[in-house]
């Protein structure tokens, strides 16, 4: 095997893992497949992941997701993990089709690592935010066919500004920075209402809340979403499956232990 020539360092492709995958024909099939069948719309109920939320509090950004994956009115999986660690200081949470979303997370994770290893510096936060945006845009032709829609949240710690930041996207890849909170997925209208209300008229604004208060609010908001949205799992009271809650701050990412969530749930939500 011949070693491939190194790409020109001046090329914008230097350090771009997605470009490397495309060059090797390994990029997850999206646009090409869509061209082959331009008029086909989704013929079956796709597996969907639902309801994720994130908000800023005194200790950083809290990101939470229920555990349910559905296809139409069938529950496919009740232990889905929708809050994914991309690197030490970035989290991606997904609502939409997990098949596409998990692949995106995989590309993203490798992109950041590849950039750091090849360019010998960390990718900037803006670069990371844009990288996810580009992946969503590449997925556009699938979205137009009604297959593989993904609407993620992205949370990361910004070392330059020394703050945790939170972004949400639409299915076409537009990125928006959230001031206080963000939620996507089928249960998100309820969650957004709860967070808006709590932020405006609750005991104190979200950014002033302590971690214990933030966790209670996240569990209650997901429970509210599950009340009216069958696609949101909420808390499975018998199976003891609790939402995934992760917190991102300067020290990195922390996942809340299930037994702690169980305790808080029994005391504050049930």
């Amino acid at each position, binding site marked *: 095997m*011949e*070693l491939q020539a190194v790409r020109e360092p001046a090329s914008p492709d230097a350090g771009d893992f997605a470009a490397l995958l495309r060059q090797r024909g390994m990029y997850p099939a999206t646009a090409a497949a869509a061209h082959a069948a331009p008029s086909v719309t989704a013929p079956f109920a796709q597996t969907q992941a639902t309801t994720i939320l994130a908000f800023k509090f005194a200790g950083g950004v809290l990101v939470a997701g229920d555990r349910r994956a559905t296809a139409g009115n069938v529950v496919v999986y009740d232990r889905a993990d929708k809050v994914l660690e991309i690197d030490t200081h970035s989290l991606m949470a997904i609502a939409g089709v997990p098949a596409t979303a998990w692949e995106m997370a995989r590309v993203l994770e490798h992109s950041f690592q590849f950039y750091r*290893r090849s360019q*010998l510096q960390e990718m900037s936060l803006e670069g990371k935010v844009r990288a996810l945006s580009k992946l969503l845009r590449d997925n556009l032709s699938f979205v137009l066919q009604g297959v593989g829609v993904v609407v993620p949240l992205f949370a990361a710690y910004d070392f330059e500004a020394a703050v945790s930041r939170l972004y949400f996207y639409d299915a076409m890849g537009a990125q928006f920075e959230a001031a206080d909170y963000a939620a996507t997925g089928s249960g998100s209208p309820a969650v957004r209402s709860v967070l808006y209300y709590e932020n405006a008229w609750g005991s104190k604004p979200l950014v002033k809340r302590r971690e214990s208060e933030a966790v209670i609010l996240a569990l209650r908001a997901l429970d509210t979403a599950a009340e009216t949205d069958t696609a949101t799992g909420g808390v499975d009271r018998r199976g003891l499956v609790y939402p995934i809650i992760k917190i991102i701050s300067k020290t990195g990412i922390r996942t809340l232990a299930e037994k702690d969530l169980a305790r808080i749930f029994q005391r504050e939500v049930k």
Partner: protein
Amino acid sequence: MIEEPYRWVEAIANRREYIEHQLATGSPIAALSYGDGILLFTLGRERQKLFEIYDRIGMGGIGHPGDIERLRMAAIELTSTEGFARSAHDVSLRRLANYSLSPSLKAAFEQVYGAPYLSRMLFVELGRGDAPNSFLRLDYDGSIRTNGGVLGQAYEEFGVISGTTNSAGKMEDHLRAQKLPAATLDGALATALDTWVIGHLTLTSDSHDDLPSPEELAKHRAEQLAAASIEAAVLERSSRLPATWRALKDAEIRPMLEKR
């Protein structure tokens, strides 16, 4: 003219001599196992010589920076695409070196009208679970030397590269006499520094020379520490993340090494 077999052999020999001459001043690199993983160590003046390749693979190189860069990028691209297409568990140093890098280096070396790679590399891989750590030297002609483990031989817990065979041999002799894996990182750093000093001091000496005296070594160590910056990195078993590479800062380890 080099279509004739004798001429071809001569051309290869000339080329080998030329490359060895180019590499002869290369500052040594030492790698060894310690309690929590692998330490890579060198002293240098200008450019970075130790690099992260993948989650559990690291690299050190001496030679022409352009050639080291080409090989480094090839190694990163190969491991990253493999790790993405299959899984990080499927990435292995053995396959990277034997099936991809070595044949390419050999081909470049023997195509006498083309340019060879002016580089000598040391690859290390942190073993998973109970698996031993791997140390692998890959030369400009594609030849490979590993830390053993074949035919019931015990694995050596170190690997080195240097500008000359004599220097590398002296470094290996020193490391064989040490108790490895080193218990602590501090212990490993001290051993690595001594090994580097031996390697550096013997770059210019004759292979029949004995090891330099302890006084000579201490003097050379003090001189070099003062004049060069320390470059070191570890692959840590205890890392919470899949990526185990951590570069050590000069300021973080210098006081401990200078105190000795």
